[in-house]
Structure formats: structure tokens, C-alpha cells
């Protein structure tokens, strides 16, 4: 079975039906529908990070680089005054970002541990400065994307992206597919070796596997999906700016990941919602929300070692 843990199945059975019905509850309240869409997009991004950090054991502090690149690549390759096909451009963006990830990964994966953290951060910063210094890309303000893609597939128009509810369903659809995609990979023969490289790289080499190649493949997959999330984000509000690829974005994603529970994939969704919930709560409490957010993060690291997903699993284990 694809979803092995009870807590996981429980979560999926509650979360996705609930989210499917959400627009009915919200009754066309565009603000909240948009808010939810962007949370779903970010959850997708965090999910790709979870695969890298939780599953492959590769800690990166530069994953947001691909989030931003997803948006910028879209801006660069799409014609200005013509609506492009969503699916075709999804393919383009994944392929181009995968190619970039292949080159970056080749450099980054030569190192490990703390070096990798610092190098991923520094390379992401390089892209950050490139886009924020460049006049062509609007500097720190970024650039606008005026036209939303159309989504016809084999002649059938599926989503109207100008409609927030349609866009919301596209995000939910993408998130679900990503979840299933990662679960399939993790249960596959490839996933077996990935697990092995995380748990004991030395032994895995001794058994005859080229650990580097498996890490590189994983890095490319996670990066392409991270870029896909950025592509969705840029489409939602119609702009791309350098803050998408800032280290704060990477850091926030890591915090969400830990909050949700690493390595479980679905925990990424939990973590994103929990973080956004906390953020919303503190923000309405005080303008100095960062003080509370920071303290919450510190407390979380010290107290909640396995995240919310780990906590739920523990509760369910006790009951059964």
C-alpha cells in the first residue's frame, strides 16, 4: 500500500476531502481562497524540500533558489503578449530547472553536511543578487506577468486561471499529485537506494552503488518540483521578485518542514498550515510577530523533536 502509516491515511482522508469542499464554505471569498492557494503552493515547495532533507539526508539552505527560478524562467521563456499553454510550460520549466539543478548539484553534492548547508546558501544568494541587481528583471521590485496561461489539454479546457477558485483547484490537484509522486518514488527500487544512501552512505558505496549519482538524481527531481511551485506562485499574483529566492524563504520552508515532521512528506502540508496559522495569529496580535515566531521556533527545536506528524504518529501508536 502506498500510504503505509495509519496517521498518514487518516490525514489524507481528512485533508483532501476537506480542501475539496473548502471553496463551498468560503462562498467565493476571494481573499481567503487566494490565501489558501498560496499556502497549498508553498506546501508543495516544502514537500519537495522534505524529499531532499528528510528522505535523502541532504540539508540545503538554498532550495528557494529553485522556487524563484521557476518564476523567472517562466518570465524569460514565455512571450509577453500571448497566453501560453500551462502544461507545455510546466514541462519546459521543469526541464530547464532540472538542467540548472544538474549543474548546481554537481558542485554542491561534492560536499556534505555543514559545507553543503553553506554552499547551497551561497549559490542561492548568487542568483538572488543576480536578479535583484539586474535592470532587465526589474531589480528588487521584480517583474510583472500580465497574461495567465490557458490550460487546454487535448482540446479540453480544464481550468480558467483567472478564476481564483479554478486556480485553487489547480493548486490542490498539483499538491495531491506531488504527494503521490513522492510516495511512489519512495516506495520504488530507486527509493530503496535513496534510503540506503541516507542511512549509511559508506556501506552503500561498499555495496557497489555510486552514491553521488543517486543524490544528484534526487536533487534534480526535488529542484524541478520546487521550481514548479515557484511557477504556480508567480502565476497566482502575476509577478516574480527576488524575495522568492531569498534565504529567508529557504529558512522558512525548513522551519515548516521541522514543524510538520521531517521525512514523512505529508508532514510538509501540516507544517505549512501550522506555520501560516501561527504567523496569522501572531501578526494579528502584534506588529512584532517575529519575536513570538522566533521564540516559537526556538521552543519547537528544543521540545518538539519529531514535529507534528511525529507527535500524531506517537498518539496513534499509543492508542492502537
Amino acid at each position, binding site marked *: 500500500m502506498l500510504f503505509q502509516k495509519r496517521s498518514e491515511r487518516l490525514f489524507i482522508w481528512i485533508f483532501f476531502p476537506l480542501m475539496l469542499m473548502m471553496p463551498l464554505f468560503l462562498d467565493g471569498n476571494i481573499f481567503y481562497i487566494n490565501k489558501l492557494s498560496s499556502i497549498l503552493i508553498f506546501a508543495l515547495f516544502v514537500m519537495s524540500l522534505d524529499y531532499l*532533507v528528510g528522505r535523502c539526508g541532504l540539508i540545503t539552505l538554498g532550495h528557494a533558489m529553485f522556487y524563484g527560478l521557476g518564476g523567472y524562467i517562466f518570465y524569460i521563456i514565455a512571450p509577453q503578449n500571448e497566453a501560453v499553454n500551462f502544461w507545455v510550460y510546466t514541462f519546459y520549466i521543469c526541464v530547464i530547472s532540472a538542467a540548472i539543478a544538474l549543474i548546481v548539484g554537481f*558542485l554542491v553534492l561534492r*560536499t556534505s553536511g555543514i559545507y553543503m548547508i553553506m554552499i547551497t*546558501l551561497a549559490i542561492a544568494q548568487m542568483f538572488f543578487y*543576480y536578479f535583484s*541587481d539586474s535592470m532587465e528583471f526589474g531589480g528588487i521590485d521584480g517583474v510583472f506577468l500580465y497574461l495567465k496561461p490557458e490550460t487546454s489539454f487535448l482540446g479540453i479546457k480544464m481550468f480558467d486561471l483567472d478564476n481564483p477558485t479554478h486556480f485553487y483547484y489547480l493548486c490542490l490537484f498539483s499538491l495531491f499529485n506531488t504527494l503521490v509522486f513522492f510516495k511512489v518514488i519512495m516506495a520504488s527500487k530507486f527509493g530503496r537506494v535513496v534510503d540506503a544512501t541516507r542511512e549509511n552512505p559508506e556501506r552503500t558505496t561498499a555495496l557497489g552503488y555510486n552514491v553521488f549519482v543517486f543524490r544528484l538524481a534526487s536533487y534534480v527531481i526535488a529542484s524541478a518540483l520546487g521550481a514548479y511551485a515557484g511557477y504556480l506562485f508567480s502565476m497566482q499574483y502575476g509577478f516574480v521578485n527576488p524575495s522568492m529566492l531569498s534565504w529567508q524563504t529557504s*529558512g522558512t520552508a525548513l522551519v515548516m518542514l521541522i514543524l510538520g515532521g521531517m521525512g514523512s512528506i505529508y508532514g510538509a502540508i501540516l507544517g505549512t498550515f501550522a506555520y501560516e496559522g501561527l504567523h496569522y495569529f501572531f501578526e494579528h496580535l502584534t506588529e512584532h*510577530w517575529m519575536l513570538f515566531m522566533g*521564540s516559537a521556533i526556538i521552543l519547537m*527545536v528544543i521540545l518538539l523533536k519529531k514535529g507534528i506528524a511525529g507527535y500524531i504518529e506517537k498518539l496513534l501508536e499509543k492508542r492502537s
Partner: protein
Amino acid sequence: MTTSLFFIQLINGLQYGLLLFLIASGLTLVFGVMGILNLAHGSMYMVGAYLAWYFFTHTDSFLLSAIISAVIALSIGILVERTLIRQLYHRNHLDQVLLTIGMIFVFNALQSLLWGNDPQGIKVPDLLSGSIPLTDTLSYPVYRIFVAVICILLAAALYYTINKTRLGMLIRAGESNREMVECLGINISRLYTIVFAIGVMLAAIAGVLSAPMVSIVPGMGEHVLIACFVVVVIGGMGSIKGAFVAALLVGIVDTFAAVLLPSIASMVVYILMALILLVKPKGLFSN
């Protein structure tokens, strides 16, 4: 580029590099001795600059405000190590990253709570406000030379401490073999506190020294942190000597890139880093 302009850029680069070294040395020392990656290290630089501004506007004495700031930074260092960093000694890198990100949030919030979000600045102390004429049209500010001299003095003090004193001996032992130092029955926890507090103080002093040269704004620490990362990665993590060489290299390359390659200036040091890592994945002075 004329010779005098070249000369000025060279001094600028050296001076920037020395300042970077002051901050990066703490980062690399804490990593080398304690195995901790402190992302909040840049925040200490910011705190130093804000403290200098705050006390300068109240006391009107740069020296006094510098001393007060350094002492406060030292206390913050001790406090933070005793309460938070201590939790991390037997945790993985990820927990270190997260906890120190949390600390960045808290420091940023405290900064905006205590001092607001408007850009601030202080003027160069009167005694050091002059310029040294180089040619008929070019001159160099005394304060920048003063900063470079202070940095060199502090670097020398650091060198002396690490190589000639008992504390330095423990630091070196801790770098090469942490378990051994623990086994020798040395009060490792006090050593850690001292090392961390010194690191924090050096970063804060760099902030104080920069205060008259830059505008004091929220987020200034994060910018510097990334530059220090590049320095530490190029130099080899945990190596003070490496940090010194790399800091000067980064300082000079960055300064000249701004003049010679303005369109990609801010990327040049990262490209430099990538090139060095291709050849030496663990930095120039790693063992």
C-alpha cells in the same frame, strides 16, 4: 584605472576584508571548537552597530560607546550560549540551523522593538574625521585607516591568544579532537562559553566600527552573514588562518569587481567561491 585609484581600491579592499575577518573569525572559531553553525552570527554585527548608534547619541563619545557595546555583546554571548546554544551540542546540523534562524527572528524583532525600523547613522568621531591627501584630487579618509589598524590589532591579539596562551592551547586541542579535551577533564563547558562570547564580541565590534561608515538598517546582519559564509567556506571551516586569507581575498575581489565589472559585481565573490570549491571542496586551508 590610474595608479592612485588602484591604490585606493586596494586599501578599500583590504579594509573591507579585515572587517570581514573580524566577523568571520567568530563564526569559524565557534564552528571549529564547538561544531556549531551559528546563523545568528550576523545579527551580532547588527546589534553591535545599533548599540554603537544608541550609546553614541546618548554619550557623544565614540570610545565610550564602543566599550559599552563590546561589554554588552560579551554578556549577550554568555547568556545566549548558556541558555540556547548549549541545547545544540549533541544535536544535528538541521537543529542548529533552525534554532539559530529562530534567534535571527528574535534579534530582528528586538531591534525593531527597541530602536525602530528607520535607517540610522552616526558621524565619524572628530578626532578621526580628516582625510589623508594622496594626490591633488584624491584623498583617503583617516577613519577607514583607523578601522583597518584596529582590525589588524585585534587579529594579532587573536593570533597571540590562540597560539601563545593556555586558552589558545585548549581551543586548538578542541579543534583537532573534541572528545580528547573532554576526556582530559578540562571544563569544556566554560571553554565553550568563552569561545562563543568572544566570537559574538568580535562580530559586535565589527558592527561598532562599521557604524560610522554604513547606514544602520534592519537586515544589515544577514547581508554580512552571507559574505562571512563565503569567507569561511573559501578558507576552510574552522580554520582561522584560512578565514584571514579568504577574508582579504574576498574583500579585494569584491572591491575591484565593483569598479571593473559593475554589472555582475555582487556575484563575483560567489563565482570565486564556486571555482575554489571545484578544486578544493573543503576550502583552501582544510585538513
